[in-house]
């Protein structure tokens, strides 16, 4: 499945400024692995260890946090929008 991954500012130095990266995968983990394969250093930013995201990395498929779906195993469809969003404060 072809999906677009939205890259937040703190990671764009790795993608040379590119903010949308197209990959093809069946689930979120596959998509992120492809992203990591494409850009050196990405893996360390996103994953604490294989299969475990860093604490402050939030991943959304379309408008839903993957922790409300099936986490890294969340399936993705053609045209889905995957976003990487750092955790932020507020109130």
């Amino acid at each position, binding site marked *: 499945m072809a999906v677009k991954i939205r890259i*937040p500012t703190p990671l764009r130095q790795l993608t040379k400024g590119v903010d949308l990266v197209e990959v093809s995968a069946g689930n979120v983990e596959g998509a992120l692995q492809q992203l990591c394969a494409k850009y050196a250093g990405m893996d360390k930013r996103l994953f604490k260890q294989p299969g475990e995201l860093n604490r*402050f990395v939030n991943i959304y498929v379309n*408008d839903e*946090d993957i922790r409300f779906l099936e986490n890294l195993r969340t399936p993705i469809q053609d045209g889905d929008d995957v976003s990487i969003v750092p*955790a*932020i*404060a507020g*109130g």
Partner: protein
Amino acid sequence: MSYVLGLKCRECGQTYPQKGVHVCELCFGPLEVHYDYVAMRGKVTRESIQAGPHNLWRYRDLLPIDGEPRSGHHSGCTPLKRARNLERALGVQELYLKDDSANYPTWSYKERVVSVAVTKAVELGYDTVGCASTGNLANSVAAHAAIAGLKAFVMIPHDLEQGKVLGSLIFGPTMVRIRGNYDDVNRLCSEIADKYKWAIVNVNLRPFYTEGAKTYGFEIAEQLGWRLPRHTVCPTAGGTILPKIYKAYREFIDLGFVADNQPKIYSAQAAGCNPVVEAICAGRDLIKPQKPRTIAKSIAIGNPADGYYVVQAVRHSGGWGADATDAEIIEAIKLLARMEGIWTEPAGGATLAAAIKLIASGRIPRDESICVCITGNGLKTVEVVVDQLEPPDSIEPRLEAFDRFIARHAAGEAPPLPVAVSTGT
């Protein structure tokens, strides 16, 4: 001049100069302001603080600003009130309320963080400030931006209380209601901050913004006569204020301003949105995000960014957490009003109700000093009590009519004493 050395990642220790960034480029961890505490020795003292202005800038040596304050000249220095009536009702010896429902100019603790963020935004050369907000932050950003002469964009969930919507609009910001909950708004703002080069106070100015929350803790200590309460009960939403109150206590201890009485800090949430309290009670570091369902909208944040640090501060201090149902929140709002003359919003009700439970369960001993953090004002959230209060009778303007009213009133039920929540578990 200031004592700021720069920004430092809380997770991996990577350092950065002062600029509008909030996450570490290496590990995504949050950045925090790093001070030269050694240089403060002998220069920053109780006396130097006491010689400062009667507002939150009296603590400016411990805040991350380099130039002159741009707003907040009348913010902070809110009442720390001894709650004698509640002490009797709850059977505790020493209870204080730190009352930011009286904070100026928009009646919540947010004046503290926004005063610092707006001042920093000007220093860093921004002309537009913004925020993702459950209401109070939007009110404060709108007002302080007006004071500092900045443009303001405030983003809120679409279903906020009218008082919180009008409480921003009156100051003339551009307000956008987002069809989603706070966590959706927050995510959008993160992307907005990326794209439009604005100072979103709780996104790219977060390291500076959160430091302002320390002044709440500094004031508690100074107002108690340079000592700390043994137990502090604090609401948790995104997780900004609790770790910063704890940091304020630790800074005052380390600088020798107060004795180290091993202060304990406790997190209060609404039962309908309790991801942090749930993690504390389960002994977990991991926060499971939730979809909020509570009347306490100002603390309805299901994916708290700093939740992890709340858990760490609570655990490190030996504190605990408790939550309150919507019914308990309303009872506690009424109790606080009828015992202490303070009208707080549901976040304050949740905090008092949680404190009552922590006392009843023995987590907080009855014979030690306790401070309950009241961080917002009930006038902004009239919706939550409008159906909870008996509407007043109307009578003809004649004395006989009044006499009949008094006779009816005396025959009617005595109003129940609002102490129902005091036996909660």
